[in-house]
């Protein structure tokens, strides 16, 4: 079966500093794959390398049957890979609607305004609060709303693979639950997800598979059920408790 994303032997970094060392991982179609690891393990750099913000020095990145290793970020976006980055990177002084419209920028499948507005409507259906904030400037939204807008903006294109960088960090428990529900819902709609999280318990609650990163390398891989049995994972990320809580999809 063709993978949604194949990263093989990728090394990357900033200037002379190497961050990623020979990373190999895979996201299958319709999977939610989690990457857990401490601060500075290289998780965000990995996402930036996939979305083209950081250049891979070695190795190969493939999306479905296309190699995208040396593509420019805007071309990678057009191939359906959308990165929701750390810090959300919204267009603060622009309205919620404008942020969404720019999310569809350069998507040639959305030729007319009607198609774009239909996409906006879909995003508002997933995040109803954004509809109420429609004309508000993005930088006046709460943290949770900003995260929803960042994810919503990434859904404006013809999205096949979503790269989420710590989407729940700093958010209230109720909002965290809502975002996890959206992640599960997107998966059911056929979008594959690569989820970077420091909070392993949270990541394991939705992931089909997970990788553990330490100092730029993948050190462990497996299903959440397998990984929680590993001593190192339990001690480092789960406070030594082997309990695994699965987030269930709540019906609206």
């Amino acid at each position, binding site marked *: 079966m063709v993978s949604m994303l194949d990263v093989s032997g990728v090394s990357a970094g900033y200037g002379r500093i190497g961050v990623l060392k020979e990373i190999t991982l895979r996201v299958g179609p319709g999977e939610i794959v989690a990457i857990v690891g401490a601060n500075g393990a290289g998780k965000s750099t990995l996402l930036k390398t996939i979305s083209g*913000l950081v250049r891979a020095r070695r190795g190969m990145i493939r999306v479905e049957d296309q190699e995208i290793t040396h593509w420019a*970020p805007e071309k990678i976006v*057009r191939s359906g890979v*959308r990165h929701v980055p750390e810090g*959300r990177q*919204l267009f603060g*002084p622009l309205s919620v609607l404008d942020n969404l419209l720019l*999310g569809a*920028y350069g998507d040639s499948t959305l030729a007319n305004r009607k198609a774009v507005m239909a996409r906006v409507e879909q995003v508002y259906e997933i995040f109803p609060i954004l509809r109420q904030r429609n004309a508000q400037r993005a930088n006046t939204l709460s943290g949770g709303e900003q995260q929803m807008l960042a994810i919503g903006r990434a859904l404006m294109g013809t999205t096949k693979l979503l790269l989420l960088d710590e989407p729940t960090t700093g958010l209230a428990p109720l909002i965290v639950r809502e975002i996890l529900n959206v992640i599960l819902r997107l998966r059911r709609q056929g979008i594959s997800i690569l989820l970077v999280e420091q909070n392993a318990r949270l990541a394991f609650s939705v992931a089909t598979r997970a990788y553990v990163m330490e100092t730029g390398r993948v050190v462990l891989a497996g299903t959440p059920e397998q990984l929680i049995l590993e001593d190192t994972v339990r001690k480092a990320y789960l406070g030594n408790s082997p309990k695994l809580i699965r987030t269930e999809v709540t019906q609206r």
Partner: protein
Amino acid sequence: MTLLGSQILQYVLSGIVVGGIYALIAIGFVVIFNVTGIINFAQGEFVMFGGMLAVSLNQAGFPLGGALLAATLLTALLGALVERAAIKPAKTASISTQIIITIGASIALRGIALMIWGTDPYPLPSFSDGPPLVVAEAAVVQQGLWVIGVTLLLLVGLHAFFHRTLLGKALRACAYNSVGALLNGISVSRMSLLSFSLSAGLSAVAGIVISPITYATYDMGSMLGLKGFVAAMVGGLTSIQGAVVGGLLVGILESLGAGVVSSGYKDAVAFLVLLALFFLKPEGILGGKAKA
């Protein structure tokens, strides 16, 4: 009205006319700075090319309207060319390196103009003939009204472009957050090209509308560019509204300075304003907060 009063009014009106020109040039600085972080010191040469090309095209037989439009478009193209030839190859270099490159580009462009047109001043016909407009004993020549009208029209147009069109919003998006722009498929490189082109076109218009008043010469860009830069700095360098306020302020102060103190100090006024700004309010009058 007293004699002094009507004189002051005359200086202010003349200041508004020349301030409109400074404002257009200042907006050129702001548009490029917002998108790329570069202060483009070749801005004044775009002003000059606008004026010179309009004169040449008009003398070659183009009707005035067509010559003005063609000169604007050609200068916009020249802006795109400068970006591709001089800025893009250095895009991994530091911003200060890129700014120095624009100084080099400005010297090169002035040199090219000198070779094409020589040192003679060229007249461009006024856009309309007729008596000056008299307001309470102060007069504005018809071309001055054109300057004010064209400036206002461009301001309205620019506002619509930046706030109503997706392309304009994409340019602002680049200014607010270039990483966010890249991750949404907005090519920052293409936006940089567009900003140079737009900004060169705006400056060309400034050069064209001022040429019937001052004549066009190959070196008219240096001083106009510097004044536009001062105006942009006064306005905080990131805001179009700031650039307009800065342009008018510099224009009016300069005109008052020349009239009340001595016309010999006309050009010094703008730089005194800049110095005062650096000492008193280094972030500019509308500095830092408002953008595009």
